[in-house]
């Protein structure tokens, strides 16, 4: 197995009148680790989907190992040794890890000898830097584990050119290092070439050899990573736009807004318990919940949004019992930004304008919907939050990952907010969007909102929060004010050894 090189020549992709990708030519040498940078909606995913034959490019050519290759569909790409980990998961939820791996192979025998396959899979797993449970349905895996499985799957399939679309957004920094250093080793051994889309400069500097930067669908620069500083890359990505400055902390802590006592619920797999007791979030403070994905944070979020019932315990908001109904959320001004907002906070096939209207459609009209008002509100918010969309009538699922996030944030942060419950708010956002969103969260806090934020990004927690908790195995195992908290012991508690 040897790495292959890939080159695009004048790749162009139009969706209707909108040009998502404009005459883009990049070259990835065999055995190199190439990073692709760009703001949300710059066209990164579009470029790689064209390379994989998932989209038919409007114009442009592909060279594989120096020779022209017509890649009409993903199957043709696979046949040439190209593989991709998509930004949205492509695993089959109800199949087990082993079944997902085996069925993705091109040469699956008609009758599968599970005993032999399992032995082979175990041997393959043993050579990997991380392990996954072969017999669990993928549905029950945490986001980080799914991402690892996606990458594992590509290696299992013996790809020689691997495209990774934001592979680390759901991984903790440690997990990301584990995965990427393995990739880098494979590149150095000449086994694969990697093209990785990312928003994290740290990863570019640490692992990539070369970098290309896209802006509004155009290739605006790139080169050897060694020759570029983070500021150079940022400047290339942003053009002449300005970065939002983080707001300063101000105001004083008020009365408790959210109180959780004796909460018990079962987790996603149905095998473990979630127990949260004595959690308080006060007005004018940001409380962060750190932890490795799959330790109960998403379940806690679901309990708060009413997606998961509690077996016992009590949630109070402003001192009154809270059952996560829409009326209560409205009267207490509670807003949510759950993880995977496209699935947890949107109706994917409805338009951007309808999705933005979800908080207000029933309160700012009478019996009839006021379409005009909804559209006007959507227009304003789309402009304010810089959501890149062709029109506000496009289905929200056609937006790029980061723009879905912005659209949902636009909806949730508008109007009066007393309690804001957020999960991984900057998942998949480019750095300028990140600083903008963090500034907005800080502003909400300064205006007296209570904010509970669950994040797998420890830097984010340390930057934003006033108080930090760590969740491990479904329980809160650590609590400290952020000023006094020390990263090492947070890390220990996250890992469960403390």
């Amino acid at each position, binding site marked *: 197995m040897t790495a292959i090189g890939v080159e695009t020549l004048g790749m162009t992709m139009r969706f209707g009148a909108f040009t998502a990708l404009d005459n883009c030519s990049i070259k990835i040498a065999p055995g190199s680790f190439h990073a692709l940078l760009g703001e949300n909606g710059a066209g990164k995913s579009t470029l790689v989907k064209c390379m994989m034959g*998932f989209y038919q490019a409007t114009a442009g050519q592909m060279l594989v190992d120096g020779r022209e290759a017509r890649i009409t*569909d*993903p*199957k043709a790409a*696979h046949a040439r040794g190209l593989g991709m980990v*998509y930004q*949205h998961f*492509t*695993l*089959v*939820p*109800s*199949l087990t890890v082993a*079944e997902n791996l*085996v*069925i*993705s192979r091109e040469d*699956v*025998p*008609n*009758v*599968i*000898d*599970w005993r032999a396959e399992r032995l082979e899979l175990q041997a393959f797993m043993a050579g990997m830097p991380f392990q996954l449970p072969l017999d669990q349905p993928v549905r029950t895996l945490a986001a980080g584990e799914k991402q690892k499985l996606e990458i594992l799957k590509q290696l299992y399939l013996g790809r020689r050119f691997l495209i990774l679309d934001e592979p680390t957004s759901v991984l903790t920094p440690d997990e990301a290092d584990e995965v990427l250093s393995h990739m880098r080793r494979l590149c150095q051994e000449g086994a694969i070439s990697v093209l990785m889309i990312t928003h994290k400069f740290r990863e570019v500097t640490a692992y990539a050899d070369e970098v290309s930067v896209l802006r509004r669908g155009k290739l605006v620069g790139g080169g050897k990573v060694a020759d570029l500083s983070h500021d150079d890359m940022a400047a290339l990505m942003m053009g002449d736009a300005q970065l939002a400055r983080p707001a300063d902390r101000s105001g004083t802590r008020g009365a408790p807004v959210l109180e959780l006592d004796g909460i018990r619920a079962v987790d996603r797999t149905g095998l473990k318990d979630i127990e949260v007791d004595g959690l308080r979030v006060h007005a004018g403070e940001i409380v962060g919940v750190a932890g490795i994905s799959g330790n109960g944070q998403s379940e806690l979020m679901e309990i708060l949004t009413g997606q*998961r*019932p509690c077996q016992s315990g009590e949630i109070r908001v402003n001192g009154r019992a809270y059952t996560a109904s829409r009326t209560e959320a409205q009267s207490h001004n509670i807003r949510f930004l759950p993880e995977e907002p496209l699935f947890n906070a949107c109706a994917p096939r409805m338009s951007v304008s309808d999705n933005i209207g979800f908080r207000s459609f029933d309160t700012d009209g009478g019996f009839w919907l006021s379409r005009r008002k909804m559209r006007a509100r959507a227009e304003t918010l789309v402009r304010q939050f810089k959501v890149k969309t062709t029109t506000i009538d496009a289905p929200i699922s056609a937006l790029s990952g980061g723009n879905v996030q912005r659209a949902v944030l636009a909806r949730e942060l508008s109007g009066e907010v007393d309690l804001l419950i957020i999960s991984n708010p900057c998942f998949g956002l480019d750095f300028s969007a990140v600083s903008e969103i963090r500034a907005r969260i800080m502003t909400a806090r300064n205006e007296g909102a209570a904010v509970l934020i669950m994040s797998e990004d420890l830097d984010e927690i340390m930057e934003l929060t006033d108080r930090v908790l760590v969740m491990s195995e479904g329980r809160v195992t650590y609590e400290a004010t952020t000023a006094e908290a020390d990263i090492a012991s947070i890390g220990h508690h996250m890992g469960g050894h403390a």
Partner: protein
Amino acid sequence: MDTELGYSIIPLAILGGAIRVSTPFLFVSLGEALTERSGRINLGLEGTLVFGAMSGYAVAYLTNSPWLGVGAAMICGALFGLIHGVICSLPRVNDIAVGIAMMILGMGLAFYFGKPYVQPVAPDLPAIGFGWWSDIPQVRAALEVNVLFLIGAVLAVVLWWMLRSTRIGLILRVVGDSTDAARAMGLRPAVVRTCATAVGGAFAGVGGAYLSLYYPGSWNEGISSGQGLMAVALVIFARWNPLACFGAALLFGGAGALGPVLQSVGISEGYYLFFAAPYVLTLGVLIATSSPTRAMTGAPGELSITK
């Protein structure tokens, strides 16, 4: 009749009745399970069942061979499934609406072409007597098991194995669970679903042939009492698992046998209430297996009714 023996025979009679009544349930539900596992729902199976009953009876009568009848019913069923599958592959077509149309079409065509076959008598499908050890005629009658039931039982096991351990089975599950994943894998979901619907239709056709060629064993317009539709509920109850479909079909068959059995042992009052047992069971099962908290485990992700 000897009432002493009459009452003690009830459990056995119900078992025998369950086996007799369950066969069409079994075939339709296996077909429906297969179709639904691919991510489509075919409500037209009721029509396919009735058309299968008619075509099976007609061909068996004309050729004097019940097996040719079963074959004909199978082919007709596959055709109905194919039509459903192809129409549903067109963009913006709803499988439930098409299913209802196919159901009405199937029944209408069956009644139209079936008129001349209401009078004639076609040969029956063979049965195997498992009651040879007993001299009591009721026991013998109860243990007459039709060959199709045995084939259906084997089929359930084969399908279960197929979904687990064969390439086709896994592909079917992939397509049923996530169109995106299937596309990324280079599969063509519409083709897989159309094939699955056609095979499901063939199964339902066989179920229909059983109705007209064995039990009740004649062709008339009231031959089906909604088995095709109840099988849809049954598949949900069985959590899309072919083995569970077998158990569920027996349960529904037993419920269906309750009325006739009570009537045959001489209970003359209120037995007709038990004729409603399968319908009550359908409702009961759907309510009992529903849950506001658990997602339907096992439900194929692309199914329009559970999505």
